[in-house]
């Protein structure tokens, strides 16, 4: 196993602090090292050529480069050795620049000693490297879009136009979502269905889109590139293909009337109905909860499309990616009992107002008092009903309600200029292109604004009264209005919870689906191959929902367009002989990549290589292909082989944040002591308690584990798992008589080099206080010896 070691000068960046000749001489004597050199700039063409020449000459089968951070040049050197015929994964880097020469500029001797340890650790690890071949798997280019609202429609059309086949699954009998029910939309007051309707029919007619309405996803198996999705199409009791969408023939003879959910309860519909005239597909649907089975519709239908014996259909789809566009549901205003919604007829919600204003709505565009049927002459809009309200568990702002009320108020004012309109608000949030101008326009139209959160609505003799404190004048008031419109907030669609569970999506505290990164990855889920668009990940306006639908489509196209997927060979694998099927790993895996049917099985396409399962497995039946147990233990042993410093710290740094923070400390030249021997792991959850115990057993004075800040883990919640393990481990240390403070877990973001250095300094001070490892045991036996 001839190993080549290359110590980089990096000009004076490294050589100016460390004694590179000494390091080279040290490396030469390490086991299995066939050649060691110091190179001016190892990443330069000359440097790379030297490595390639040596690979041929010395028949090297693995290479160690002691230079900068692997986060910078690992890909460069992997490519270089691959050119010389080595497997690219037969490379290990010792980070002697960012995490050594740059941070210990005033301590060249100690820094050189640390660099020696880092090189020894890298050589020890490199001896255990195995060639890895990235696997390519064929993937389905088809995409499932769940939810036919505006976000789902945008995603489906972009995908279909790009040549991907789309299955668009919608729970309701028509696509269009909430947008199809709105009247005009802000800030331009153009007609909602006029802009959405053409898109809806485009979806219906697109050769690349299979539209499946009145259907639900029942099961999801597989992973990125190859999801198998079970979909159930509920019985509509009408043959979609035969129905001509004439609407009236069947519903005119239907004897059953129920409140129309598409008018939010203010209008009525029959048991057989078409949701609205622009519905897509334009086919009737029988509500099985309302139908009494008289079969008049069967006889009335001239196309013989009504089939009361229809049964649900179940089928399976094979898709490469899933776009979740499940949208939202309005806040249930009856939960704010003080407003009397559901008891007082003249208290309505925004959505009911939208339907009233809609020319094809239940009142044909007239804004009336539901109690009398007369035109409302005085209207109050109450903002933040179910939003920014901890008493109902919704702290968040629903973002669109201010604009929706401004818009509805304007529409009413334009239609009935004499109407007295007051908007009761906490803050008006009009942040968006043209929104502030829209707000000003509303003010100019003579709409009143009162800064107040209405505390109660009373009904006296059929009239409603708002009771509130005007926070600008400090007065308590009681004001009569004809109609009160509750600006209800947006909540995540309850029906989407099932899908979220099937896909393994996580939820934020506000219960909307969580995206992979709150800024940088706005449409990706934590699960590979799953994207989230529109209000499923939080309240959004129409243009943003459309942008997100298109963004999700672009992401899915990027993922699938080649038809194959290259898998990083960093995944976990199971030694099936050892696995006891305890299933601990199944719950721990943030990517839902592990299933236990017979022994555990890791779906390598889904695995992202965090290694939490390998750390959790009580029998060590799971290991990683890269960052294996054996390799990490070898690094721990090499770090503690020669106790070259006191206190000696073995530090495990997660690749994404804390290793990045340590690198940043280097690039920012933040100076800190040399005591830590850093080991890079993919996630703090990778740290198996046995690594820590091994380090302490071999004489390390302390072990530092650093992860991303809580809540910011790149694998969702690995750092919480690490924290839990450290807490258990502290108990173990206490039992065996060691100070539990010898293990420390800290959090730092990749931008927090300063914090990393501070945490390390603190830990060194704490360890000095404790004394060398074993002091506490000596103290104890000393105490026991005393009378």
């Amino acid at each position, binding site marked *: 196993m001839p190993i080549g070691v290359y110590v980089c000068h990096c000009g004076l960046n490294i050589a100016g602090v460390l004694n590179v000749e000494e390091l080279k001489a040290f490396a030469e004597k390490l086991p299995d090292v066939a050649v060691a050199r110091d190179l001016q700039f190892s990443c330069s063409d000359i440097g790379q050529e030297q490595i390639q020449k040596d690979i041929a000459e010395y028949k090297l089968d693995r290479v160690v480069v002691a230079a900068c951070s692997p986060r910078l040049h690992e890909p460069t050197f992997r490519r270089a050795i691959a050119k010389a015929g080595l497997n690219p994964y037969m490379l290990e880097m010792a980070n002697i620049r960012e995490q050594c020469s740059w941070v210990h500029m005033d301590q060249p001797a100690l820094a050189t000693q640390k660099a020696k340890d880092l090189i020894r650790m890298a050589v020890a690890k490199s001896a255990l490297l195995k060639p890895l071949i990235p696997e390519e798997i064929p993937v389905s280019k088809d995409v499932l879009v769940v939810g036919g609202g505006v976000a789902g429609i945008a995603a489906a059309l972009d995908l279909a136009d790009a040549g991907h086949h789309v299955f668009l699954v919608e729970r309701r009998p028509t696509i269009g979502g909430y947008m199809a029910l709105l009247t005009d939309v802000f800030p331009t007051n153009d007609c909602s269905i006029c802009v959405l309707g053409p898109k809806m029919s485009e979806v219906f007619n697109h050769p690349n889109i299979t539209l499946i309405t009145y259907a639900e996803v029942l099961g999801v198996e597989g992973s990125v590139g190859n999801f198998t999705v079970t979909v159930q199409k509920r019985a509509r009791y009408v043959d979609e293909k035969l129905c001509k969408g004439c609407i009236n023939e069947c519903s005119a*003879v239907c004897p*059953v009337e129920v409140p129309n959910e598409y008018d939010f309860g203010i209008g009525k519909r029959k048991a057989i109905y078409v949701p609205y005239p622009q519905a897509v597909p334009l086919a009737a649907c029988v509500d099985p909860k309302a139908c*009494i089975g008289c079969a008049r519709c069967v006889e*009335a239908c001239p196309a013989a499309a009504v089939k009361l014996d229809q049964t649900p259909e179940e089928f399976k789809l094979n898709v490469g990616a899933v776009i979740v566009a499940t949208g939202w549901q309005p806040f249930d205003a009856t939960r704010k009992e003080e407003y009397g919604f559901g008891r007082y007829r003249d208290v309505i919600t925004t959505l009911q107002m939208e339907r009233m204003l809609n020319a094809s709505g239940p009142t044909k565009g007239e804004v009336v008092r539901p109690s009398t049927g007369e035109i409302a002459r005085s209207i109050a809009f109450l903002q933040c009903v179910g939003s920014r309200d901890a008493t109902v568990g919704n702290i968040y702002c629903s973002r669109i309600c201010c604009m929706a009320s401004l818009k509805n108020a304007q529409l009413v004012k334009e239609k009935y200029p004499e109407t007295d309109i007051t908007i009761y608000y906490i803050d008006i949030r009009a942040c968006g292109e043209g929104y502030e101008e829209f707000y000003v326009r509303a003010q100019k139209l003579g709409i009143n604004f009162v800064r107040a959160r209405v505390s109660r609505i009373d009904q006296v003799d059929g009239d409603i009264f708002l009771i509130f404190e005007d926070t600008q004048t400090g007065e308590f008031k009681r004001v009569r209005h004809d109609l009160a419109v509750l600006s209800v907030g947006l909540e995540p669609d309850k029906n989407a919870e099932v899908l979220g569970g099937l896909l393994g999506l996580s939820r934020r505290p506000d219960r909307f689906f969580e995206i992979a990164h709150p800024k940088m990855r706005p449409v990706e889920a934590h699960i590979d191959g799953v994207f989230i668009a529109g209000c499923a990940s939080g309240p959004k306006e129409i243009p943003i929902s459309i942008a997100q639908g298109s963004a999700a489509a672009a992401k899915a196209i990027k993922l699938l367009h080649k038809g194959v997927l290259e898998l990083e060979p960093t995944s976990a694998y199971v030694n099936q002989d050892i696995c006891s099927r305890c299933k601990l790993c199944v719950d721990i895996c943030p990517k839902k990549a592990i299933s236990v049917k017979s022994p555990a099985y890791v779906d390598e396409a889904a695995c992202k290589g965090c290694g939490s399962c390998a750390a959790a497995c009580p029998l060590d039946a799971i290991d990683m292909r890269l960052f294996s147990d054996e390799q990490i233990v070898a690094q721990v042993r090499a770090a503690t082989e020669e106790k070259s410093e006191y206190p000696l710290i073995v530090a495990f740094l997660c690749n994404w944040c804390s290793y990045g923070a340590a690198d940043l400390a280097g690039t920012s030249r933040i100076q800190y002591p040399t005591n830590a021997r850093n080991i890079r792991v993919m996630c703090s959850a990778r740290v198996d308690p046995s690594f820590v115990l091994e380090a302490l057993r071999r004489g390390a004075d302390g072990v530092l584990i650093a992860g991303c800040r809580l809540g910011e883990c790149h694998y969702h919640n690995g750092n919480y798992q690490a924290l839990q393990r450290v807490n258990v481990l502290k108990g173990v240390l206490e039992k065996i008589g060691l100070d539990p403070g010898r293990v420390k877990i800290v959090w730092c973001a990749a931008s927090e080099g300063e914090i990393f250095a501070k945490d390390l300094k603190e830990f060194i001070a704490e360890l000095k206080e404790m004394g060398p490892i074993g002091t506490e045991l000596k103290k104890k036996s000393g105490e026991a010896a005393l009378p």
Partner: protein
Amino acid sequence: MMEIEKDMDVEGTHIIVRQRTKETEKTLDYDYKKCAGCSICVALCPKKALQEGPLQEIAKGLDAPPVLIDLDACVFCGMCANFCPLKAFKMTVREIPKLPEDAEAKAEAETASA
């Protein structure tokens, strides 16, 4: 809109209501001699087309139907017939045979020419 005709007949203790469309003739035959006045049908009728009769008087010997049918409200869904424990209601559906197409066309042509 499809045309619906309804009528009601009384034959002895049978109250017979009928609904005719161009496709079917539905007959609901209520034999009040079999009816015990349990009122299950009244509770269950989705159109509230059934109503209790003078039950107390009937118990004292009055010869009258314990359940009254509102012909206008009844939609002939047949739920009463399905649930009646004493089978006092009987529902029959007769398909009205369609005229052969050319015959129909001929008939239409005849009426048109007439």
